[in-house]
């Protein structure tokens, strides 16, 4: 069974006070997330990531389509007892202390009274806030609130967690900790669905990613498969300062630094370039494939739509 099944979910907002203009935040989206995977939901600002998560949480209602989570309808309380949600820029009742807030959320999620305080303490330690459980949330910094947000999402041991930009507002240590936490969750057999625009995080963590732009799904799959389709480049370095004319003709930039030359060329012309160097008796120092990262794929996927959007406005 898929943990999340999105069947043509779609959302149009009506913006403007007087004459309402429809604004399409999410075009019909089809997506399935398997149980036990870490799934990254990528897209630039305003792509529709948060909108998708809000639709899945039942906070806003779709214009069309439907979705099932853990095989149940979106508004099913039995399903909601088994999921956790971290909203973007989370904000909580600031008159409560962190411990009181988590106790309250534990009550709402149906955590049994006798395990509740143990779970609260455990989760506070897990997100790196063991000492501030008794401090009122109005005295928390942004990153601390983000950690409380993560704590409340995993407090009740959910089978599936949704994180909207879990790394935002965290220091480098915090980012590392959250990454480790997501990996632990996966080891525990949980499913993690998170949105981000930090591609290196996605690349390091995700089993699969989906890329969305302007409310439209642009690609979905394993990171390795997606990046394989992007044409790679190679970097050649040789001794001397000479650049053979034949190599120059292949296209690509050459940089002369001291007594070596460095050239970056499309992967396809690698052999031709090496032949050209041999003919000139230049000593090759290295041939290194320039790793095609998710970033290249991402940028490539956004381009056509960027052109379309430019034409429209």
């Amino acid at each position, binding site marked *: 069974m898929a943990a999340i099944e999105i069947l043509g979910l779609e959302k149009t907002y009506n913006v403007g006070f007087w004459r309402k203009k429809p604004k399409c935040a999410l075009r019909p989206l089809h997506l399935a997330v398997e149980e036990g995977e870490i799934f990254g939901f990528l897209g630039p600002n305003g792509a529709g990531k948060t909108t998708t998560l809000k639709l899945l*949480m039942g906070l806003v209602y779709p214009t069309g389509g439907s979705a099932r989570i853990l095989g149940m309808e979106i508004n099913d*309380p039995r399903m909601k007892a088994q999921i956790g949600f971290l909203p973007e820029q989370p*904000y909580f*009742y600031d008159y409560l202390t962190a411990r009181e807030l988590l106790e309250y959320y534990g009550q*709402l999620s149906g955590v049994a009274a006798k395990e509740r305080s143990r779970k609260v303490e455990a989760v506070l330690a897990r997100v790196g806030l063991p000492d501030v459980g008794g401090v009122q949330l109005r005295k928390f910094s942004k990153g601390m609130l983000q950690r409380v947000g993560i704590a409340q999402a995993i407090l009740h041991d959910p089978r599936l967690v949704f994180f909207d930009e879990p790394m935002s507002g965290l220091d480098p240590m915090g980012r590392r900790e959250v990454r480790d936490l997501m990996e632990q969750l996966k080891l525990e057999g949980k499913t993690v669905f998170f949105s981000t625009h930090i591609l290196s995080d996605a690349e390091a963590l995700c089993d699969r990613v989906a890329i969305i732009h302007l409310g439209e799904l642009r690609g979905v799959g394993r990171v390795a498969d997606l990046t394989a389709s992007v044409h790679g480049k190679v970097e050649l370095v040789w001794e001397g300062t000479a650049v053979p004319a034949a190599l120059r003709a292949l296209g690509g930039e050459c940089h002369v630094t001291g007594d070596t030359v460095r050239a970056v060329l499309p992967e396809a012309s690698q052999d031709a370039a090496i032949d050209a160097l041999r003919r000139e008796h230049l000593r090759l120092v290295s041939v290194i494939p320039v790793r095609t990262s998710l970033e290249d794929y991402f940028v490539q996927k956004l381009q056509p739509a960027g052109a379309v959007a430019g034409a429209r406005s």
Partner: protein
Amino acid sequence: MNGRIVHIASNTFREAVRDRVLYNLIAFALLMSGAAILIGQISINIERLVVINLGLTAVSLFGIVIAIFIGIGLVSKEIEKRTLYTVLSRPVRRWEFIVGKFFGLACTLVVNTVFMAIGVFGALLYVSHHFQTADGWVLVALYFIILQFLIITSLALLFSSFSSPLLAAVFAFSLFVIGTFAEDLRGFAALTQGFTRWLATGAAYIVPNFSALNVISSVAHQQPVAGQLIFYNTCYALIYTAMALCGAVLIFEHRNLK
């Protein structure tokens, strides 16, 4: 009552207490003791009348102000600050949230009224040195005041579910004022003719009937309250409150959160 509603209600109560809502009790205590001392000095045999009239009116006004000002923010503030996201993504239904919020504020108001009532009885004891059996009717008047709070709270919730907090406060307060004259309104409606009569009668019966719930001056004159009126008012207030809450729930159920 289901557990989640209880938890939401007690959290709402806790919020009110921590936001120092009950500080109004200090103002109330000062008012009552000042009034008692003053009345004790000047009046000739009408101390009880004045203390009961003044005390109960103050209880009612303090409570109404709290009911409106907290009531309009109960749900709209949670939407605005997005504290609702992490509540509604749990196994909490939207109607449970509204009902829990309502009961939380209702509890706050009852506790508040109990303390203010103690103040009123204290002042009564100060000016007349003993209680009379007729003073028991003051309790009935207080009960009716609490019924008014329930109605106003549910109306504040209803209005804030579709308009801005400021407008909701204006609506709720206007209805309180109009409702105080509900019986006069019904009288006027009966005098008009034709279509206007339909309209006026409809309007007169839609506004909450606070005049029937106001027995302050008759109690101050030591007149008893009919058992029938107690029964009728209880039913009326509960049904009116339930309908306003249903309206608030219906609107909230279909609402997209910000």
